[in-house]
């Protein structure tokens, strides 16, 4: 979470969004990550997405665990509250935050160590609860901050910088989320903003748990030749299966598509996702088939990306709980405390 203040320079004539804000208003402090770290690209995609969506920065809360990836919330949305939890435990903090204030827009940034090792249980249960948040894993196959040990997402056969070869099978958060009934499951690459930004926007607007597993190379510990999580490798074996375009509410769909080529999914706030198949044999509605598709491509060394599954109809945690629409942290005390008379009455039972 180290950070350096960044001078905010706003040029005249900078683009402004519907709120009249410039992109500077969505930035954070100066990154202290290694020059070239994939995580910084994800940060800038996040900045771009929130800016373009015209989200009021202070209506967002940004959360993370511990790791290089988990430092990044300091580098976007200075005007949003942040929570840097203990290692692997951000999902529970997010659950509590959402329980208390369902109107906050939550974005969580985690790493493959943070989410797939120490935090696997909390991650899985957040998926299960369909907690309303965007959850980004900046996946680099190593523990960056502790200097490059293999993480649980390291591929079989991949080599560490010091030569060690990983022989344990990886845990793939995308497959996990599929098997756990995740309602928004996507994968992308920090080097491909064109793919990533619409996914982030859609994830912000999705009503429920939106997972984006972003391959985000670690230039310092996992960007060498025999690594399967390097820029070069990822770029080469990147295999987009579905393309997603995000269209905000009220905005027209501009591009013309051939009939049947595009599937439109409407989100709760009226925005839409336009989904276009890139790989013909990918089917979006089938978790099992998705897993299969991912596994078989993975065997060939390919990394399937895109919005791989979405279901906007499942109830989120509050729907399941039937929570009042008013954020709980906003309820007046007299709605909460039954008062003296009630106390008298209820004690009859105990007499």
């Amino acid at each position, binding site marked *: 979470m180290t950070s350096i203040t960044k001078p905010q320079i706003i040029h005249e004539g900078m683009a402004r969004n519907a709120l009249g804000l410039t992109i500077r208003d969505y930035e954070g402090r100066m990154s202290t990550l290694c020059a070239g770290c994939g995580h910084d690209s994800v940060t800038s995609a996040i900045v771009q997405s929130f800016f373009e969506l015209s989200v009021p920065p202070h209506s967002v809360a940004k959360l993370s665990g511990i790791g290089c990836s988990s430092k990044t919330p300091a580098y976007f949305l200075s005007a949003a509250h942040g929570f840097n939890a203990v290692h692997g435990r951000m999902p529970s903090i997010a659950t509590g935050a959402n*329980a208390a204030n369902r109107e906050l827009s939550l974005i969580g940034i985690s790493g493959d160590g943070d989410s797939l090792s120490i935090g696997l249980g909390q991650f899985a249960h957040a998926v299960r609860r369909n907690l309303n948040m965007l959850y980004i894993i900046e996946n680099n196959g190593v523990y960056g901050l502790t200097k490059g040990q293999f993480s649980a997402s390291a591929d079989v056969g991949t080599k560490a910088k010091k030569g060690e070869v990983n022989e344990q099978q990886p845990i793939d958060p995308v497959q996990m989320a599929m098997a756990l009934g995740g309602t928004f499951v996507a994968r992308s690459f920090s080097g491909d903003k064109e793919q990533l930004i619409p996914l982030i926007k859609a994830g912000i607007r999705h009503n429920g748990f939106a997972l984006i597993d972003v391959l985000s190379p670690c230039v310092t510990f996992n960007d060498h030749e025999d690594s399967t999580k390097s820029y070069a490798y990822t770029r080469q074996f990147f295999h987009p299966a579905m393309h997603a375009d995000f269209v905000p509410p009220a905005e027209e769909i501009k591009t013309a598509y051939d009939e049947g080529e595009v599937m439109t999914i409407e989100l709760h706030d009226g925005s839409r996702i336009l989904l276009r198949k890139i790989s013909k044999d990918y089917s979006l509605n089938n978790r099992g088939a998705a897993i299969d598709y991912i596994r078989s491509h993975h065997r060939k060394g390919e990394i399937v990306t895109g919005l791989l599954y979405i279901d906007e109809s499942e109830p989120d945690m509050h729907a399941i*709980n039937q*929570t009042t629409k008013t954020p709980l942290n906003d309820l007046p005390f007299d709605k909460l405390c039954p008062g003296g008379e009630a106390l008298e009455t209820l004690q009859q039972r105990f007499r």
Partner: protein
Amino acid sequence: MPGRAKSRVNDFVIRLANVNGTGSASANGLLMKVIFRMGIPVMGKNFFPSNIQGLPTWYEIRVTKDSNLARSGEIDIMVAMNAETYQQDLKSLSPGGVLIYDSTWPRNSVLTRQDVTILGVPLAKICNERFSDARTRILMKNMAYLGTLAALLDLDRQVIKNLVEETFSSKQALIQANIEAIDLGASYAQEHFKCPLPTRVKSLDKTAGHIMIDGNTAAGLGCVYAGATVGAWYPITPSTSLMDSFKSFSERFRVDPKTGERNYCVVQAEDELAAIGIVLGASWNGARAFTPTSGPGISLMSEFIGFAYFAELPAVLFDVQRVGPSTGMPTRTQQGDILIAAYASHGDTRHVLLFPANPKECFELAVKAFDLADRLQTPVIVMLDLDIGMNDWMSEALEWNEDYRPDRGKVLGAKELEETESFYRYLDLDGDGIPYRTYPGASAKGAYFVRGSGHNKYGGYTEDEDEYQEVVDRLKRKWDTAVKLVPEPVIKMRKSAKLGIVSVGSCDYAVLEAMDRLARKGIHLNYLRVKAFPFGDKVAKFLNQHERIFVVEQNRDAQLKSLLLLETDYSKARMESILSYSGVPIDCRCIIEAIEGHVAKEVAA
């Protein structure tokens, strides 16, 4: 009757030996409630196994006209319904006592004692003749022995009837059967034994203004009254019923009758690490949030507890203590988590603890816990134990002050933020060590990062030694503020006593009884019961007023004494521990013995 029969009206102990999963618990609870409604003070302790069905379980009821609401250590009447434990039950009966058993099956003739009265009632037989369904037969046997006791002890039959009717008001069909079973048991006793026994009850008027309630129920209700909206938990005995209480009272008081919408959110977490995380996430956002747990949960939560201490987040935890270490005995009581709760988590940490001694205090201190957590921006752990939490206690009725408004502490809202020039999270503006906080979503001006890593007084990340130290030094000053805010101890002074007792929580009634009995023998003691950690001046003063302090607590390692040693200046040499930690609630005998022993030594020396 053989032995030296005791005639003890309204002053005796009944112990009921049963098999768990047979419905005996509700019959025994009913028995206790009948006595309570007859105006006689009564205490009940349930000894149940960590198992669902088929193992021995005991229920102990002390009828105590003088309101000695701790165990006495004696057993005057034994209802020995469990063949497995018959021998042991017979053995544990006090001389002169009465044992009642189910004579449907003959008992082993070796198993007898000359100094007690043994009464056989063919309960199974009676019930099998009357009821046909297997489950009903089992359940009604309990009612039948209740009936036998009604006759032997002279229980008020109308009170019983009313209670049965209330209890089964939603299942009318059962009322008749239950009453019949009671009658069967009573009739048999009346026909075969001289009723009532010399040991029996007689109506009094000493329970007015009181209720029978367990501490978990009271604490859960306290959370409702405090305005808690988020509860997160992972089931664990003996804390589970605290959340059950919160849920059921919330269902009653906090659901919009029209929409069915809930003004609360209970999250059954995947484990305790998540439960405390949910609490912290919620209090970060300004909801009052809590988690009930027990020892293993505290251990699992300790990383996050340290986080909350350092990042200064309010949190309310209830540690309903059970026997440790480790899984220990989940259905037995102990006060073994005091030290770990006080200093939970690595690094320099310390936490506010509250120690209720009875259900009424559970209710009150639950409310207080939220105020303190919000005011001090730190975790507050309410230390119950299985005895307070799960046993029904005769307690003063709960009261509510309508003027109560939650103390939410130093929170700046959007408006206040607008008026201030700049907001920094960890400045000590008021000299009390407590900084100001803001909620997410309120305003961009209030934005800051909550973090467990090094931070300076502005809330920024730091690895600078001076900036770091400034923050932890202020945290220590905040602790000095805490001393002034926590509830004061309860003190009972007798004139000019040089010996003092310090105790905590569920030891209370045992200490009081011991003091009474010792006083009758001419040994006078003063008494202080701590209600909170940090202890504060009153505790220090009390200690210093006494030549010798006996610290009574229910753990092996003298944990309260350790805290007193660490946090006051009273000399170790003048403190003596009285410890009871086998898992059954303390009774006054060990206290009396230890103090008499001490006095005898003093005299001899």
